[in-house]
Every structure is written in structure tokens, then in C-alpha cells.
């Protein structure tokens, strides 16, 4: 689990050290070690219930770890209550105050900090500008649309100029178009304000578009930490490969230097750190399967069994003679029933060590 060196991020802001969290004896987070740099956009990505929110709440101070430490700017903050942490949160369901109007919601933190009236007015004003909500000051929360509420929630958090902003699936309630817009806006905002973002999502596309670093989690355990490109192209295990984007996962055997065998054929590849005859998992992205109308042009031959138009590309399923089903994303279409030729470029073949978990190893 290495992390990339990112040039645009600074010194360490937050560090989670061996965090372990149990609820009533059930482990929810295990051996969590994570370092988040200043100005970094980190995304926690994983399926529902994998502990993303819990991790965020531990950083925010709403939950305490069973064991392990939370460091903030080098200092241990385990026992610092939430209201004293220089962290602000955009909650999953916004948690806007229903008894206060838009202005007062955003001004809440500033009033608590006893800023003077003029400063409050100016800051709320510029926060509203940032989220493009000028003119909504007097509106009640109930009168806002979901997207507007979400903007207010963001304004309410950033107006306090926190060092770290925690965002728990803030875009989950929005429709696709607004969601894409807000993704860009948030990303711009983060660059503009120079705040560290810890962003929770279970949408892998969102994670890839927005983040400097993606943290992929499963059942309370970090699977991989890396840049979006790194996580996409070099998944450390089947779970990550499967969760980030679509992928075809095959059993294979490493033959010799830069040569691998799977689906009954030999393929040149670029991975080198495997032993001869080692069993491996082969990951191929559907968009990396090159297809040809003439079966003879491909290394493998398969019969198209389904075609779905997806907008930019076609999603096809094709079956080889040995019964393996391949998912293919291609801008060209082959009709159902046609036999096509398939080939894969060496650097699009990604090999992974066989996962060694218990009794399954002996079976093969």
C-alpha cells in the first residue's frame, strides 16, 4: 500500500494511527492507518456499511476509536471534543437548522465564535457567493430544494475557514446533472480555499474524478490507498479491481518473463515481479479489449451474446468456446451472434498475486 507523491499537497494534516473501532463487540474499523496531507482531496470509497461514515465521525470527534490515535497537525486529539476541533462537517443529510433561515444557518459558527456583526455579514455574503446562493439569505430551509440545501450546508461549513472539511456523501441526494456540476464546483472550491477535503462516497466514478487520493475500503479494512489513476490501473486485489470500474477477472498462470497464460492462450504482458508458473489473477478492463470483425485477427474468438448502447460506447457480452463471458466496451458495435476476434495489448493486462485466504489456496 504505497501512496503517490503528489506535488500539490503539503505537510501532514491528519494521521490515523492503528484505529480500531467496535460497536457492541462488532469490529467496524480495523487497523486503519492513514495520513492526509494539507490541501489534499482524499476520498473514502467503499460499499455501504464498510465504515466510511464511522471513520469520518472519528476524525470529526463524534465517535471515539476503541483503540488507536487521531493526530491533527501532529497533535493527538483523541480527547478533544468535537466543538474544539478545527474541522467542519457537511453531513450526509445536511443537518441544517430548521428553525433558522439561510443566513442564520451559515452565520451559526461565526456567532458561536463571537465575531462582530459586520464581519459575520461579510463572511456569510462571500460564502453565499461561493455557493452561488446570493439573495437566499431570508429563505427558510424548508423552502429550499435539495441541491440548494446542500449548498447551504457547504457554505455553513466553509464559512468558518476550517483546516479540514469532512463531507459525508454530500452529493448522494442530487440528480446526475446537478451532481456532476457540484463535483466540479466542490473541486474548484477546494483548490480556491486551500482546505483539506475528506470526502466520503460509494460512487467510484465520483471518487476518481474528484480526488487526489482514493482510499478504497471493504468491511472496515483499507484495501488500497493511491491516486485515482493508480487505483484504477493497478488495483491491489480483486475487490478493488471489481469495485473501481468494471473489470474482467480471470485465472491465469505466469509463464516466464513478461508472458502470461489465461483463457487458453499466451499473452505478452508488462508485469515482471512474479515467479515462473505462479498462479495469478488477471484483470482486464472492458474498454481494453480490442475487437475485430474478422475472428482470425484476434488472439481469442468469441460470439457476441448481448449488446447494450450506453451513450458513448456499446457494452457487449461475448462468450468464448470455453464458456467464459467477456464484457467489452467499444465504440464500434458487433451484432448479436457474430463471432469476433479479441486481443489485448500487453500494458492493458494487469496481473495480481493470488489472494491467499485460508483453505481456498490448497484447492488449486
Amino acid at each position, binding site marked *: 500500500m504505497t501512496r503517490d507523491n503528489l506535488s500539490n499537497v503539503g505537510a501532514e494534516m491528519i494521521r490515523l494511527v492503528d484505529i480500531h473501532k467496535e460497536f457492541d463487540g462488532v469490529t467496524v474499523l480495523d487497523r486503519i492507518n492513514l495520513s492526509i496531507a494539507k490541501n489534499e482531496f482524499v476520498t473514502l470509497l467503499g460499499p455501504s456499511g464498510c465504515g466510511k461514515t464511522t471513520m469520518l465521525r472519528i476524525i470529526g470527534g463524534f465517535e471515539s476509536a476503541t483503540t488507536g490515535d487521531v493526530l491533527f497537525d501532529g497533535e493527538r486529539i483523541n480527547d478533544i471534543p468535537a*466543538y474544539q476541533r478545527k474541522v467542519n462537517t457537511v453531513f450526509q443529510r445536511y*443537518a441544517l437548522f430548521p428553525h433558522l433561515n439561510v443566513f442564520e444557518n451559515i452565520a451559526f459558527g461565526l456567532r458561536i465564535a463571537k465575531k462582530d456583526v459586520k464581519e459575520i455579514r461579510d463572511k456569510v455574503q462571500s460564502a453565499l457567493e461561493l455557493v452561488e446562493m446570493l439573495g437566499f439569505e431570508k429563505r427558510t430551509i424548508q423552502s429550499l430544494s435539495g441541491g440548494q440545501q446542500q449548498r447551504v450546508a457547504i457554505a455553513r461549513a466553509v464559512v468558518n475557514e476550517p483546516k479540514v472539511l469532512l463531507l459525508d456523501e454530500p452529493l448522494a441526494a442530487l440528480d446526475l446533472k446537478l451532481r456532476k456540476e457540484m463535483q466540479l464546483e466542490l473541486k474548484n472550491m477546494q483548490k480556491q480555499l486551500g482546505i483539506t477535503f475528506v470526502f466520503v462516497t460509494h460512487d467510484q466514478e465520483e471518487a476518481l474524478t474528484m480526488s487526489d487520493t482514493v482510499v478504497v475500503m471493504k468491511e472496515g479494512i483499507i484495501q488500497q490507498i493511491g491516486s485515482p489513476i493508480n487505483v484504477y490501473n493497478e488495483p491491489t486485489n480483486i475487490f478493488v479491481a471489481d469495485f473501481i470500474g468494471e473489470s474482467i477477472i480471470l485465472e491465469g498462470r505466469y509463464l516466464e518473463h513478461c508472458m502470461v497464460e489465461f483463457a487458453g492462450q499466451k499473452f505478452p504482458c508488462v508485469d515482471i515481479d512474479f515467479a515462473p508458473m505462479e498462479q495469478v489473477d488477471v484483470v482486464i478492463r472492458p474498454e481494453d479489449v480490442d475487437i475485430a470483425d474478422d475472428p482470425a485477427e484476434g488472439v481469442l474468438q468469441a460470439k457476441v451474446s448481448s449488446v447494450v448502447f450506453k451513450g458513448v460506447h456499446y457494452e457487449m457480452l461475448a462468450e468464448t468456446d470455453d464458456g467464459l463471458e467477456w464484457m467489452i466496451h467499444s465504440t464500434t458495435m458487433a451484432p448479436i451472434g457474430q463471432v469476433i476476434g479479441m486481443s489485448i495489448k500487453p500494458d492493458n493486462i494487469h496481473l495480481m498475486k493470488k489472494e491467499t485466504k485460508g483453505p481456498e489456496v490448497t484447492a488449486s
Partner: protein
Amino acid sequence: MKRNWLLYPYVVWMILFTVVPILLVFYYSVTVQGGGFSLTMAHYARVFEPLYMSVIWRSIQLALVSTIACFILGYPVAMILANSPDKQQFSLIVLFVVPMWMNFLARTYAWLSIMENNGIINAFLGLIGVGPLSLLYNAGAVVLGMVYNYVPFMVFPIYTVLRKLDPSLIEAAEDLGANPVRSFLKVTFPLSLPGVLSGVTMVFMPSVTTFAISQLLGGGQFTLIGNLIEQQYLRTYDWGFGSALSIILMIIILISMGLMSRSNVYEEGGLI
């Protein structure tokens, strides 16, 4: 437009049990007793005599005092209930409700025997050489009776509102730097005001109309408007005056309820 026939039973019920009695009371209050339909304002004029005004004023005062006392006692109890773990919550509520199943008069009589001159409290005081103090038959005893009997009416509406309060709002306040006290003052309390208002209404109304509590613990020397009305109906048989008092009492309650519903809780914003 189609009429909703399901509403009819309710309308009939309303007319039979609410409208008719009120109209009857109103009729008695503006007619000479036994005089057929001859109208008079004499009953109302009597209400405004100083003697009776002082009784009305005293009733309002005591009801206010007991409402405030119920609020001060009830709010923390409601908070404790709402914040205790679900399993405990049930038993705590049962603990709270069971005394309410006991007859109202029996409960109030119990206080009588506790506070009597040779009652339990004075027996204790006697042991340490104090007293006996006369604890009964004063305003304090009556307020105590009201608070004891009506405090659940304050606790439950507040408890219900606090239970429904989204805990993430408290977390949001904390997240924005509010310590527990400030997050209570700026979020929890303002959001619980609807509960407080219905609690206040539900305590103030029976307090201002009670006659049993003031009769038992006030010993008949402590007349409230409820006692006055009861006397007119059951002892002096002056139904006209009693009805006028009832109508005035109703107006007082309507005004106080109107005042409370006018204060729109959500628009006002935080208290501080």
C-alpha cells in the same frame, strides 16, 4: 365538490358534546334565572366586582406559578427520559405513568396526610425539634398539588419533541463550535418549543380551572375561580353567575392560547 361523509359522526359528536353545552352555559349566563328569556348582564357585572376579580387574578397567578414550576421541573426530566438508552426509557416512563393511573383525588389526599399538622413531614420535623408547621391551606400547598398532578402533562409533550429531534442537528451545532450548553440554548431548546408550548397549555388549563386541589389542599379557605364556579352550581344554585364565570374563564383560556399560538416559534430564530 364531494362531501366527505366520514366527517358526519364527528360533526354530530361535536354538536352534541361541545356546541350544545357551551350554548346552554351561554344562555344561563345572559338570562335571569327562572325568568324565561329575559336578558340580563347582571351576572357579568357581578364577575367584575373586586371580590371576584381578586379570585380570578389569584387563579391566574397560581396557574402561572405552577405552570412555570412544572416547566422548570419537567424540562430536565423530559431531557433525561429522551436521552436515556431505549431499554431504560420504557421503564422510566412506566415509573412516571403508573402514579397517574391512581385516582386523582386519592393522590391529592395522600399529600394531605403527608402535610397535615400531625402528618409525616411534621412528625419528622418534630423529631428534630421543629414545628409543627402549618403546611396546608396556603398558596404553596395548592401550587404543590397542581405541580404534582400536572407535571406529566409538561413532561410528555417535551419528551416527544426531544425524542424526534434529529441528533445530527446537535452534532452540527457542536461541529460548528458550540459547546453542550450553547448547542442546547441555540438548537435543542428552540426546536423543543412546540413541545413546551403544548406542555404549558396542558398544565395551565387544568391549573386555572381546578377546584378539587384548591379545596383539599387549600382547605376551602383558599378560593379559586374553579371553586367559585363549583359553589354557584352545586351550593348556591346560582347557575347564571356560575355560567358567567365559566364563560369568562373560557375567554381567559382562549386569550392565553391565542397569545401562545401567535408566538411563531420557528420564525423567531435562536433565543440568544
